[in-house]
């Protein structure tokens, strides 16, 4: 991980992609969502985690697509996979506990890592209906760790999300709705939870005991105060380690020359 690129050689999407990629450890089983996470995982596969096993929700197990799929249901997912099957298998495998890591996104997040992808406003009369949950809560319930990749805006890092689509570290126990620690609710089914948020401003971790989010690193060019101001909740900045590690030249080569040369998910930095 030496040979870092200089600031003018990479964009924000590159930085996010590399930060996401570094969350994977070798030999892990990873559930990949559509978009930037796909590139991030395939980047890890090309660099530090050659033996990771990639699951695409739509039905491919241990996939190694030579051309970037545009979504998890894409025909490209099948090429080179160990098995091409369907959701019954991918979700059974996930519920069975095979999955180490999942990558997810969201429109809103709270300080406990609860994420909303369902609606803005009152659920029963929403201001804006979004796509819905998809597999977000499932992957997040079943995997040992999940990484959220998000646009960092103050309206997205909120005190309370409009709707908890995907469970964080403190969640609601139904039918009553009391707030409890995830470990308490999940009981024997507890495997972990959100382990990182990679936003357009910084990288965040979670205190697994009280469940709150903290700033781990800030992206080059951002400041801690700026990031704190971009959160509606009181962000813990006591554990900041420094700046987010920039992409290496090798990573940029894989992203732009091998994995996503057509800029489907990651735009190239326009040279002056």
């Amino acid at each position: 991980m030496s040979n870092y690129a200089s600031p003018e050689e990479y964009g924000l999407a590159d930085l996010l992609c590399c930060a996401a990629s570094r969350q994977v450890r070798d030999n892990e089983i990873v559930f990949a969502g559509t978009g930037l996470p796909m590139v991030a995982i395939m980047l890890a596969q090309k660099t530090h985690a050659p033996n990771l096993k990639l699951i695409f929700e739509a039905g491919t197990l241990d996939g190694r697509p030579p051309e970037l799929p545009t979504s998890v249901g894409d025909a490209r997912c099948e090429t080179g996979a160990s098995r091409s099957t369907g959701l019954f298998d991918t979700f059974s495998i996930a519920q069975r506990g095979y999955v180490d890591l999942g990558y997810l996104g969201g429109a809103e997040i709270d300080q406990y890592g609860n994420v909303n992808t369902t609606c803005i406003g009152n659920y029963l009369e929403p201001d804006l209906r979004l796509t819905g949950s998809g597999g977000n809560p499932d992957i997040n319930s079943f995997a040992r760790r999940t990484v959220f990749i998000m646009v960092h805006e103050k309206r997205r890092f909120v005190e309370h999300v409009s709707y908890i689509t995907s469970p964080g570290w403190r969640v609601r126990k139904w039918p009553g709705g009391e707030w409890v620690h995830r470990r308490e609710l999940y009981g024997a089914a507890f495997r972990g939870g959100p382990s990182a948020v990679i936003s357009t401003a910084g990288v965040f971790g979670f205190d697994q005991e009280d469940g709150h989010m903290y700033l781990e690193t800030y992206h080059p060019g951002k400041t801690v105060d700026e990031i704190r101001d971009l959160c509606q909740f009181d962000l813990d900045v006591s554990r900041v380690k420094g700046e987010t590690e920039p992409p290496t030249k090798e990573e940029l080569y894989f992203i732009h020359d091998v994995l996503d040369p057509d800029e489907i998910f990651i735009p190239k930095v326009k040279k002056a």
Partner: protein
Amino acid sequence: MSTDKRITLQQAAEIVKNGSSLTFSGFTIWRRPVAVVYELIRQQKRGLHLIEVNGGPQTEFLVGAGCVDIWESCWVGHELYGKYGANLSRKVGKKEILVEDYSHAEMLFRFTAAAMGAPYAVTQTSLGTDIHNPEYDVLGRAGKRDGKRIGKQKYVYTDDPFFDAGPQVLIPAAKVDVAILCVQQVGEEGTVRISGQLYSDTEVARAADITIVVAEEIVPESYLRRDADHNTISSFEVDYIVECPFGAHPTGMFGKYDVDGAFLKDFFTNTRTQEGFDAFAKEWIFGLDHIGYLEKLGWSRMLNLRANTALNYKPRR
């Protein structure tokens, strides 16, 4: 044997009655039976209850055209060609449609339960989310939970009496009247061979009371039966078959053609208003049949989507 199950696209759409519950093959923007969906719109179906493992363009076509009263699923959009379902979103805001949210795995397990002949499934997903919030039981609030096709409860919260494995959530089987599938090959007696990802096709085919298969080609049963372990759905699970090349367009078909991204992007842009959708439907759905639609799309566009048969997709370079 006179067991030919062949019907036309029009007949396939006629099997779906106003008020039917309906589901589809495929995943988001892949292998959706769009040719039949267009025909459902032409036949002006009303009051449909869509129960989908996940939604996609087919949802947005039917919702935009006013065919759908209830949508039970977890997701709708056009992947990178349109980031959400704008017709659905607009109609939810205006309370013109009932939306019941389950998670993706829950929808899949609901269909699995139905396909297994079980009234419900046992899961541990989405614990602690608002998906399980009893206040958000939309069909319950609307008085639709009759215990016949729609379960009396949205969820039952329970525990594991065997291993103390943590809280269990019981979810009702997805009972549907009709499943419409869009696949590569079907034999004249109904045997289906799907290539590539299977998505949730085997489950929805078995869960539905009537299963209609639209295939790129109808092939001899004897050909499929030479390799019984490569087949995906058995003959007697399929009631009707339709041969319809490019029947999934604008969604993609593994080994045959890619997603028509430009078409979807254009459709999504139009669906931001009802007027936009109506204009789009007027141009691309009403007054056309499937061949007319293909003529309108044109050879150049369709050849450009054609999958390379060695790769099973259209390579970008």
